[in-house]
Each structure stands twice: as C-alpha cells, then as structure tokens.
C-alpha cells in the first residue's frame, strides 16, 4: 500500500481522480468532476491537501465485482484507489509525524472525507464520504438529519466524519434507483439495525417480475414495485405515497419529506422529467427557512416554507440542492443543452421505515389540522400558528427538551416519562415561540386515541386561560366527535389539568 500527497488544485484533483480508463480531457467535462471541483473548492468545504491511497479494497465494489465484473472477458481490476481530502496543508513528513503520534488529532480535525475511484470505464465515482457544509453565505444553516457518524481507517489512524455515503450509478449492476436505495440503507441500517446490501445485491433483491422491460443485469433501472420490494427485503416497510397533489401542490410533498427526515429517515424521491423518464434521489437534509405566513383558514406548517432540500443525486453529486419553482416543480441541478437547470415533477415519495412505526404522517396531520381549525374559528390568536409536525426518536426528543432553555418543570414533565421509541410531534409555534406539543404514539392504530401526551411550554397566564376556556367550551369536539381531533376523555382531562 502506498500513498501520494498533493496540494489541492483543480489539476491535481483531475490527476487524483484519474483511473487510467477515461481520458483526462473527458474526465474534466463530466458533471461529477465539475460538481466536486465546486464542492471541494474555495466556495465549498475548502480542501487544501489531497492524499491518494492505493490500492484500496472497497467492500461495496468488491461485491459488485464478484457479481458481474469478475466473469467479464475484459480484465477489470478488483481494487480501487481512495482519494482523501484535508482542510489544512501538509507534506509527507508532517503527515507521517501526525500519523504515528497517537495523541495528535491534527488529521482528524482537518479531515474532509474521501472519494473511492473505481477501475471502470464509465462509472468511476465509488463510495464517497464528504463533510457537509453547514452555514450558508447568508448565515442561515443547513440541516442534514440523515447523516451519521463514520469511522474512516487511514493507515491505522481512525478519522471520524459525519456524512452519508454517496456513489455514482453503475449503469451495469445498479442504476440510479439501486444507488439511491443503497445510500438510504446506510442510514436505516444504523437507525434500525437492519442489514446493508451492496448496490448489486439491492438490484438482485428488487427481483424482476417482468412487469416492465429490461433484465436484471445489465440493469436499466427499477420500477416502484421493485424499489419497495428491495426495501422490504431488509425487514423495513415502504411508506409509498403516489399522488397527483405532489405535482400541483408541492407543499403536500414538502410536509411529508420533512416530517420523516427530521427523524433522520432518508426519503426516496421519484422524479419524473418532461420527457417521461424517471429518476430516484435520496433526500438527506433541508435548508433553514424563514417563516412568513399570513393568518389564514388553511393550516400552515413550518415545512411549507422550505426552499431547498439536499439530496444524493447519483447523476450530480452528494448533498445536491433541490429547490422549488413557482409552478410546483422541483429544480434539479441537471443542466439542459443550454446549461439551464432542468425541472422535474415529484411523482412519488418512498420512505423506508421500521415496521413498528405504524402511524403515518397523514394520520397526525389530520388531527393537527382539526385542532388548528378550532383555534382559527375561535380567533384564539391574532397571528398564524405554525405547526411543526415531525417524527422523532423519543430519546432525541427528551435530549432536545433537556438541553433547551425551558424551565425545569417542563424538562421534568418530559424526561421522566416513558414513550415509545418513535413518537410523532404536533408542535404549535407563534413568532418562534413554542406554545405546546401534542405527542402521538407511532405504534398505535390510526382509528384509536393515539395522542399520548401534552407538553405546555408557554405558561403565560392569559394564554393558559384562553386555551383552557377553548378546551372546556368544545369538550365534546376535542374528546370524541365525528370530525373532532379524538383526544379521548382521559387524555382530555390531562390537558385540562396542565392548563389549570
């Protein structure tokens, strides 16, 4: 095993990513190369040093190699090279000094991630882990709930990185769908302790019912049945939603994606382009947003204001920006022949979830929208309530409350309670002030009383009085009435007790 160190420049990046199978003048014109140039450059995560490790055995590629490339007549290599990036400048002497110093954190502190270069003629970008950039130019943040911690071993040194693995589609063993699912599985395997198949194994597991054209290998892509089947093969279930609403009212998709993404669940977005072709990407985060909703009869959710999601798009790069156009299209970073961004419609949303998460976003949304309507008709607030509806692991919920600036009584009311592993939250917010949370049991049945707790943050007397009066006045509607929020008598009494 050997290594080479280069100063980070565009030319050196080209040399580092060269696999001897694609001419350099072709490589530099590829979308991925341009994307990495921007991502790693001064406007991105600002790489200063490149370290090339060769040979490198990539487990994901090795499995694909044994499934396909090993029996090709052409001699494809079985090992890859791994290109590491660091945010500080150093040479060989400094590198080896830091490498052998067990107490030094120098390499870990400036580590930006790696790109595996596969020895293939077309798909060269293998498993890639890159640091995310957190703060936008305008000072607002980016959130990547689907990232997880990885430990990268470099010549015996363990480097830690928070990211989500990415790779370019291999048009032979795994088209975009298999690669998007593979990225999503990297997070779900950590979240739910499920297995992690390689891209070619995902393609195999997806099966081929021949409802469509093509063969399993070489793979022309997966249809929705196959995508859902691949997800279920790991012991997860597919939350599959296909609706015309996504194409005419993109808010409905934003709400859904955000609600699951908050819990770290990557969302698979099935996009449809104007030419009728389909594409699958993995949503892994979203950009911070400003809330500017006028008071209206229709419910407002925080997620309605999201301007950008971040996605692993195997045709573009990791954490690619997906913004929205005025006519409910999603603007991809794909350029057309004139260099303009291509728009697509959201065709379907597929979320790999743990089977015990039975209550869906829509079940919680239905309840919250009714409560919002009661408040609106009663004219309880002068300003619009913003609802934050999301799924969260109960321990994460307790941790955020515990670390918040809420008073001790609120913290105690939450952290001492027993909740299911995953809970749904319906949080009422006005002007960045959290008012209260309704907590919903994700394991319950949708037709039951699945609201299990009420956490009051805003304890101002006048607010409590107004809310209490409203709850008492419309008790029968709140408790159990056709079209009501169905809180149940016992739970209703708990809310009243909290407000008194």
């Amino acid at each position, binding site marked *: 095993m050997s290594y080479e160190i280069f100063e980070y420049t565009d030319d050196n990046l080209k040399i580092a990513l060269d696999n001897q199978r694609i001419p350099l003048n072709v490589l530099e014109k590829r979308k991925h190369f341009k994307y990495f140039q921007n991502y790693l450059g001064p406007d991105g995560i600002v790489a200063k040093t490149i370290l090339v490790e060769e040979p490198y055995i990539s487990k994901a590629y090795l499995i694909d190699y044994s499934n396909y490339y090993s029996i090709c007549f052409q001699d494809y290599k079985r090992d890859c090279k791994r290109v590491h990036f660091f945010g500080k400048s150093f040479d060989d002497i400094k590198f080896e000094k830091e490498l052998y110093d067990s107490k030094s954190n120098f390499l870990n502190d400036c580590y930006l991630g790696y790109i595996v270069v596969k020895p293939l003629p077309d798909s060269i970008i293998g498993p890639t882990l890159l640091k995310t950039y957190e703060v936008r130019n305008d000072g607002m943040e980016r959130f990547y709930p689907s990232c997880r911690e990885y430990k990268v071993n470099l010549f015996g040194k363990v480097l830690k990185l928070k990211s989500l693995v990415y790779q370019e589609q291999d048009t032979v063993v795994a088209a975009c*769908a298999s690669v*998007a699912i593979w990225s999503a599985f990297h997070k779900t395997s950590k979240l739910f302790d499920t297995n992690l198949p390689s891209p070619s194994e995902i393609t195999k597991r997806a099966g081929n019912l021949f409802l*469509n054209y*093509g063969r399993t290998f070489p793979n022309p892509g997966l*249809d929705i049945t196959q995508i859902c089947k691949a997800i279920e093969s790991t012991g997860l279930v597919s939350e599959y939603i296909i*609706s015309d609403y996504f194409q005419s009212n993109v808010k409905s998709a934003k709400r859904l994606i955000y609600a699951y993404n908050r819990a770290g669940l990557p969302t698979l977005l099935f996009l449809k382009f104007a030419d009728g072709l389909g594409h699958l990407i993995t949503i892994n985060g979203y950009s911070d947003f400003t809330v500017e909703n006028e008071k209206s009869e229709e419910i407002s959710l925080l997620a309605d204001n999201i301007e950008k999601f971040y996605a692993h798009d195997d045709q573009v790069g990791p954490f690619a920006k997906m913004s929205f156009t005025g006519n409910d299209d999603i603007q991809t970073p794909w350029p057309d022949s004139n260099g303009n961004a291509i728009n697509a419609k959201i065709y379907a949303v597929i979320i790999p979830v743990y089977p015990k998460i039975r209550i869906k976003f829509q079940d919680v949304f239905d309840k919250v929208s009714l409560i919002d309507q009661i408040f609106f008709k009663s004219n309880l607030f002068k300003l619009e309530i913003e609802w934050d509806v999301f799924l969260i692991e109960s321990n994460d919920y307790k941790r955020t409350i515990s670390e918040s600036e809420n008073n001790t009584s609120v913290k105690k009311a939450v952290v001492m309670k027993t909740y299911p592993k995953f809970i749904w939250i319906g949080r009422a917010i006005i002007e960045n002030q959290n008012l209260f949370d309704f907590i919903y049991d994700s394991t319950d049945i949708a037709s039951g009383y699945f609201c299990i707790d009420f956490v009051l943050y805003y304890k101002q007397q006048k607010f409590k009085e107004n809310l209490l009066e409203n709850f008492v006045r*419309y008790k029968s509607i709140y408790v159990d009435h056709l079209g009501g929020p169905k809180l149940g008598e016992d739970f209703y009494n708990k809310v009243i007790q909290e407000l008194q």
Partner: protein
Amino acid sequence: MYLYCFMVIFAGNKEAFSILKARIKCYDLIQFIITIPIFMSNIHSTNFLTAKNQINRVSEADLLKALEEVKTNNDNFRKSFKSDNEAMSIKAGR
C-alpha cells in the same frame, strides 16, 4: 412594586415615590432590575393573543361544519393516493 413604579414614572406621583423609597431595599432593587427584561418580554410575547372580548364563541354546530370541510380536504388528499398502470411502467433509471 410595579404599580408604585408606574405611578412614579408615568404620573409623577410624589406619595407613591415616598412609599417606593421606604419599601425599596437593596435586594428588592436587584430583583426588580432582573425582572424588567422578563416583564417586558412578557408584554411583547403576549401580543399574539386575542383579547378576551374578541374571541369568537362560535357554536358547536358551526364548528363541526368547518371541521367537516377540513376533513373532506384531508380525505381528498388520501383518495389521491393511487397507483395506476403508468406508475408500474415507469422506471427510475435515468
């Protein structure tokens, strides 16, 4: 305490000032200074609450009617969840 302060500040009430002077101890003063921002933020943060007399006492029947409308909208969204032949024919493989 707040009442006396307001009487002194806004009405220039001399009697209130002498009562305030007699009652203020060092500890009170510190406590008072600490509570000013909380008091002010309370005034600000209750701005979104509707005054009691402006709260609508809408009848249960009217409210149920409004809720039925919301429920219908939500149901329509649920009804739109359907997979057709096109969904089965399109592949994600661009």
